[in-house]
């Protein structure tokens, strides 16, 4: 019954177009009324308390780092380097996309920002030399969702805070699965696009590759700085985020000299607004999460799932499928925020490693960025490539399926996540 009130109020208010943050508050109000504990202070306290959180400060810092990278020329140099390395291969710009997506993922924490940067640079290049643009857009979209899996990741930060799981461990756990996603995209591109009848770039000479590498070395230093710094204990994830922002600003402003002081206000304001939109959602989700706990909705769900609860693999499968379905209609951060308080008690009860679960969960949620009707990454690629939505969706499908396969593989072989995590954490 509680579950009905929860879902009814949440989905009902979203259906009539309420912003998700407001829908979450309305859902909280509905639960308060149902539990006969209506109190404005519950809403106020959880909203403010939700934002009053040091680890979540990583969100604005990573957003800022991403904006500074794009404005300061770091992103462009990474793509240049990828072009020099693999641009001459058959279907080369596709591989460029994947390599660039992987490197960008290790620098930026947001799929949407990554995809926008990749699409803005690569689509015109691919169109110019005659690639099938909708197919290229599909690949870029699928490459963009590697960003929240490879550290740094705003998705992991939000999940880590909501679930009480170590963000550093989540970051380290995402590295191998993110690389696997890139590998699966490479194989898929090789299978379906190896015969693109397009002119190829000339093979770059050793000197040219060297120059691109030298030019991009400052940008490439960023993932080493972030992951290395956290791994060596120089800083916490939040501090890593601020270091990344300062580093991107420094390289863009003083090394590449593409960032002007006069741009800073706009860039900071833009990062601030993007992160405030995310944080307002996070705060609103704390209201409903508090009442989910009081109403013991996870208990109700556990009863519904009954026999599945005995098998961790089956439970994971059910949860991942649920995320994929919900991810169709709900955006990335809301999916994480709404499902985490419902799932985490089940995960603990079933004895599933929460870090491992987090990786599967975020990966499934990220795949939702590619599925209609609400797929933000798809929207971005459509807008930048000026391609109709239907075409991009049709063309993203093979790449999306390959990523779902990776997800299935990780469910069947948890060691693919847990063993490297322990290795990265030095255990």
């Amino acid at each position, binding site marked *: 019954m509680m579950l009905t009130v929860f879902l009814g109020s949440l989905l009902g208010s*979203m*259906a*009539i*177009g*309420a*912003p*998700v*943050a*407001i829908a979450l*508050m*309305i859902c909280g*109000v509905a639960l308060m009324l149902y539990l006969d504990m209506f109190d*404005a202070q519950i*809403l*106020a*306290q959880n909203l*403010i308390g939700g*934002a*009053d*959180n*040091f680890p979540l*400060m990583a969100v*604005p*810092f990573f957003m800022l780092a991403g904006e500074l990278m*794009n404005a300061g*020329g770091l*992103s*462009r140099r990474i*793509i240049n380097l990828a*072009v020099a390395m693999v641009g001459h291969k058959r279907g080369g710009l596709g591989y460029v996309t994947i390599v660039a997506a992987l490197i960008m993922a290790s620098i930026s924490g947001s799929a949407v*920002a990554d995809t926008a*940067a990749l699409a*803005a*640079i690569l689509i015109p290049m691919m*169109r*110019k030399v*005659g690639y*099938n*643009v909708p197919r290229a857009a599909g690949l870029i979209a699928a490459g963009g969702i590697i960003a929240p899996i490879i550290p740094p990741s705003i998705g992991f930060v939000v999940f880590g805070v909501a679930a009480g799981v170590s963000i550093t461990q989540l970051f380290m756990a995402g590295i191998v699965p993110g690389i696997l996603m890139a590998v699966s995209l490479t194989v898929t591109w090789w299978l379906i696009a190896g015969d693109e009848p397009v002119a190829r770039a000339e093979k770059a000479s050793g000197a040219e590759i060297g120059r691109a590498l030298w030019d991009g070395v400052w940008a490439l230093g960023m993932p080493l700085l972030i992951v290395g710094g956290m791994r060596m204990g120089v*800083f916490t994830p939040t*501090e890593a985020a*601020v*270091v990344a*922002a300062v580093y991107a600003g420094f390289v863009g402003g003083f090394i590449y000299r593409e960032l002007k002081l006069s741009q800073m206000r706009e860039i*900071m304001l*833009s990062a*601030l*607004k993007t*992160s*405030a*939109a995310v*944080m*307002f959602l996070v705060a609103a989700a704390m209201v409903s999460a508090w009442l989910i706990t009081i109403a013991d909705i996870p208990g109700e769900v556990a009863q519904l799932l009954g026999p599945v609860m005995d098998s961790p693999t089956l439970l994971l499968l059910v949860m991942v499928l649920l995320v994929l379905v919900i991810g169709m209609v709900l*955006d990335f*951060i809301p999916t994480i925020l709404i499902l985490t308080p419902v799932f985490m008690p089940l995960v603990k009860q079933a004895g599933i490693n929460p870090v491992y679960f987090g990786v599967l969960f975020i990966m499934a949620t990220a795949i939702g960025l590619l599925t209609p009707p*609400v797929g933000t990454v798809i929207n*971005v690629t459509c*807008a*930048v490539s000026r391609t109709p939505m239907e*075409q991009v969706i049709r063309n993203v499908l093979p790449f999306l399926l390959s990523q779902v396969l990776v997800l299935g593989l990780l469910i069947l072989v948890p060691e693919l996540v847990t063993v490297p995590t322990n290795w990265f954490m030095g255990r």
Partner: protein
Amino acid sequence: MVLRRWLLASVENLLVAGFAVMIAMVFGNVVLRYGFGSGITISEEVSRMIFVWLTFGGAFLVARENGHLGVQALVNKMPPLGRLVSRVTVELASLFCMGLLITGCWAQAGLNMANPAPVSGIPLGVTYLAGIACGLGIAGLNLQRLFLLLTGRWVEPEPDLPLPAPPPAPNLGPAQNPDRRPDL
């Protein structure tokens, strides 16, 4: 009009300045810890308070631009009357939630203005003031939209994509096939 633009710019400048202070404090703490074996003990507390203000101040700016994430697909398919009713209901519901935010924060601010944070001594109630400010701001927007909706002057906003400024594309030499259309 001029006053309104000036006010908006002031809010934006204040928030950007707060962001800069927050960066300086958290970054400064890392530098001090490694460079000088010390730390800014108030950094954690004060940066968190600024963060709360940035979140709720920023949430108001985003609301001004209709930028909060929502699902419009169903509403857009509704007939005009259904759409109007939905829009009005949403604004009323939001107004109600903001009312709760304001009264709840008012009560909590009152309880915590005499509750200083351990290191900085700044009252913990300061964070609740951010909720009041944001609640008042968004409630004002709700009232404004209700007025426009009910007087038939509402203009549906263009969906705004969260696009960061695209970086300039590298030059690959002359176009080989500039007019080629995507395969349809």
